[in-house]
C-alpha cells in the first residue's frame, strides 16, 4: 500500500487498515456486478425479436472484404476528388469573374477618390487580389469536398477505413487510431493534431502528431488540384483531364500515407521506441446520413472556418508580399533580392526562388502559397488579368514551369513544414519545443531530399 502513504492524505491513513490489498480483483467484481445488473434490467425491459437480414454485415462484408476492401477505399477517394475537381471548375470561374469585376470597380473608386498609389497597391493589388484568389480558388472545392467527406463520415465509413488499414499502422509501431487522426488531417492538420488526443499512449500520440502533416490538408488541396488540372490534365484529351488530375492528387495523397507509415516506423524504432498499446475500434452500424445536417455542419464548421482562417491570414500576407515587391533597395525590390538569393536552392529542387519564398511566406497558412507565387510572377513584369485557369497556365509557362516543376511543387507542398497554426497546435499539445522543432524539420528535410531526387533524376533521364 505504498501508494497510499505517499499521498499523505489523512483520510487514507485512517482507512488504510480497511482497504484490502487485492484492488484488481475488486475492480473485476465491481464491473461484473454492474454488468450482471444491466443484464437483469435488460431481461425485464428489452424484448428481441427475430432480427431481419443484417444489412450492416453485408455491407461490411463488401467494404472490408479481402479483395475489395482496399480497391473500394481508393476508388471512393478518387471519386470524391473527381467530383470536387469537376464540380469546382465552373463556380470557380464565376467567382473569379465576379471578384475581378469588383476589383475594377474598387480601382475606379480609388482613382476617383485620388488615393495615393501605395495605398491602392497595398489594399487592392496586395490584400484584395490575394483574398479574391483565396476565395475564388478555395471556396468551391471546399464547399464540395467537405460535404462529401462529412457524408462518408456520417455514413460510418471512416471506422471501416481504420479497420482495413490497421495492420499497416500496427506494423509501423503506431496506434490504430492514428488512421482516424490521419483522416482528420485531410480536413485540417491543426484539427488532426488536436484529434490525436484520442490516443491514450503518449508515445503513439507523439508519432501521430509528428506525422499528421503528411496528410494533405484542405489548405493544400486547392494548390494540388489546380496544378494537377493545369499540368497533368492538359496532357490528355479534355474528356479525361479531370480524371487524370484526380488520379494525380490521389497519387500525392497515397505518397503522403506511405510517408506517414514509413516515418511512424522509423520513429517507433528510434526516438519513440515501445510496444503498441491496447487498441479498440468500434464499428458502429451504418447510418442513413442526414443531408441537411451534413450541409449545415460541413459548411459552417469546416468550410467557413477554414476559409475564415485563410482570409484572416491571407490579407496581411498579401499586404506584406506587395510591400516586399514594391520596396526597393537600389533598383531591385526586396522581394526580388530575397527570391534571387533563394533561387539557386530552388533551381536544384526543380523549382525557383519565388516558389520557395511563397512557401516561406505561406507559413501562416498553406492556402496562400499559390497566390504569392502568382503575385511574385506578376510583380516581376507580367501584367496579366488572372481570371481563368488558362491565364494561370500561361503565366506559369512564361516563367519556365514544366510538368516537372509542377510535380516538385506538389511534392514540396506535401512535404515541407506544417503551417503556423499546426505548429502552434503541436506546441500546445506536446508542450515541448523540441517536438515542435522536430515536427518542422522532419517533413522539411524529407521535402528537400525528395524534390532534389525527383528533379535530378528527371534531369538524368532527360525528361
Amino acid at each position, binding site marked *: 500500500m505504498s501508494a497510499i502513504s505517499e499521498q499523505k492524505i489523512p483520510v487514507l491513513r485512517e482507512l488504510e487498515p480497511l482497504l484490502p490489498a487485492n484492488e484488481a480483483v475488486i475492480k473485476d467484481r465491481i464491473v461484473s456486478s454492474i*454488468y450482471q445488473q444491466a443484464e437483469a434490467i435488460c431481461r425485464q425491459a428489452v424484448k428481441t425479436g427475430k432480427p431481419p437480414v443484417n444489412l450492416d454485415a453485408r455491407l461490411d462484408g463488401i467494404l472490408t472484404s479481402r479483395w475489395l476492401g482496399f480497391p473500394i477505399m481508393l476508388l471512393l477517394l478518387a471519386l470524391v476528388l473527381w467530383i470536387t475537381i469537376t464540380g469546382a471548375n465552373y463556380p470557380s470561374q464565376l467567382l473569379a469573374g465576379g471578384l475581378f469585376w469588383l476589383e475594377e470597380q474598387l480601382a475606379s473608386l480609388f482613382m476617383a477618390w485620388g488615393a495615393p498609389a501605395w495605398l491602392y497597391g497595398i489594399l487592392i493589388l496586395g490584400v484584395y487580389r490575394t483574398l479574391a484568389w483565396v476565395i475564388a480558388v478555395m471556396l468551391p472545392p471546399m464547399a464540395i469536398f467537405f460535404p462529401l467527406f462529412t457524408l462518408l463520415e456520417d455514413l460510418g465509413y471512416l471506422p471501416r477505413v481504420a479497420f482495413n488499414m490497421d495492420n499497416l499502422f500496427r506494423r509501423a509501431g503506431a496506434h490504430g487510431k492514428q488512421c482516424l487522426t490521419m483522416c482528420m488531417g485531410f480536413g485540417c492538420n491543426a484539427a488532426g493534431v488536436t484529434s490525436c488526443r484520442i490516443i491514450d499512449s503518449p508515445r503513439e500520440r507523439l508519432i501521430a502528431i509528428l506525422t499528421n502533416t503528411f496528410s494533405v490538408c484542405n489548405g493544400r488541396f486547392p494548390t494540388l488540384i489546380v496544378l494537377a488540372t493545369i499540368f497533368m490534365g492538359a496532357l490528355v484529351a479534355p474528356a479525361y483531364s479531370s480524371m487524370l488530375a484526380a488520379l494525380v492528387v490521389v497519387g500525392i495523397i497515397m505518397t503522403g500515407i506511405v510517408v506517414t507509415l514509413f516515418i511512424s516506423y522509423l520513429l517507433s524504432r528510434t526516438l519513440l521506441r515501445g510496444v503498441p498499446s491496447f487498441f*479498440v475500434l*468500434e*464499428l458502429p452500424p451504418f447510418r442513413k446520413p442526414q443531408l441537411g445536417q451534413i450541409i449545415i455542419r460541413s459548411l459552417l464548421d469546416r468550410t467557413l472556418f477554414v476559409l475564415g482562417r485563410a482570409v484572416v491570414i491571407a490579407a496581411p500576407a498579401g499586404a506584406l508580399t506587395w510591400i516586399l515587391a514594391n520596396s526597393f533597395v537600389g533598383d531591385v525590390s526586396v522581394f526580388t533580392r530575397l527570391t534571387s538569393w533563394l533561387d539557386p536552392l530552388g533551381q536544384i529542387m526543380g523549382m525557383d526562388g519565388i516558389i520557395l519564398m511563397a512557401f516561406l511566406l505561406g507559413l501562416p497558412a498553406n492556402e496562400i502559397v499559390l497566390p504569392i507565387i502568382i503575385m511574385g510572377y506578376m510583380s516581376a513584369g507580367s501584367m496579366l488579368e488572372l481570371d481563368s485557369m488558362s491565364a494561370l497556365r500561361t503565366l506559369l509557362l512564361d516563367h519556365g514551369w514544366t510538368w516537372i516543376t509542377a510535380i516538385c511543387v506538389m511534392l514540396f507542398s506535401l512535404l515541407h513544414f506544417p503551417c503556423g497554426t499546426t505548429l502552434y497546435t503541436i506546441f500546445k499539445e506536446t508542450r515541448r519545443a523540441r517536438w515542435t522543432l522536430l515536427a518542422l524539420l522532419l517533413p522539411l528535410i524529407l521535402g528537400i531530399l525528395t524534390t532534389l531526387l525527383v528533379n535530378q533524376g528527371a534531369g538524368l533521364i532527360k525528361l
Partner: protein
Amino acid sequence: MHSSLSLADIPVGSSARITSIVTIGPNRRRLLDLGLVPGSRVDSIRRSPAGNPTAYWIKGTVIALRNEDASQILVDTRGVF
C-alpha cells in the same frame, strides 16, 4: 482446465464464452468496460483484409481488437451456439 484457448484463436463465424482475462492493469479495465466480462458471449465476425484486427460481436456492438490484445482473453467454446 480447458482454458488455453484465446479469443484470437477462434475462427471467424464461431462463438465463445469468456472465461477470464489475462491482462492486468488499465487494459484489463478497458476490456471489462467494453463488456468483455467473464461469462459473456462473444462472436468472431470478420477479419480485416490485412488479417489483423478481428471484429467481434460483443453485447450488441461490433468491436475490433488486434489479435495480440484478443489473445489476452481466454474463452471456452463448449456449449455456445
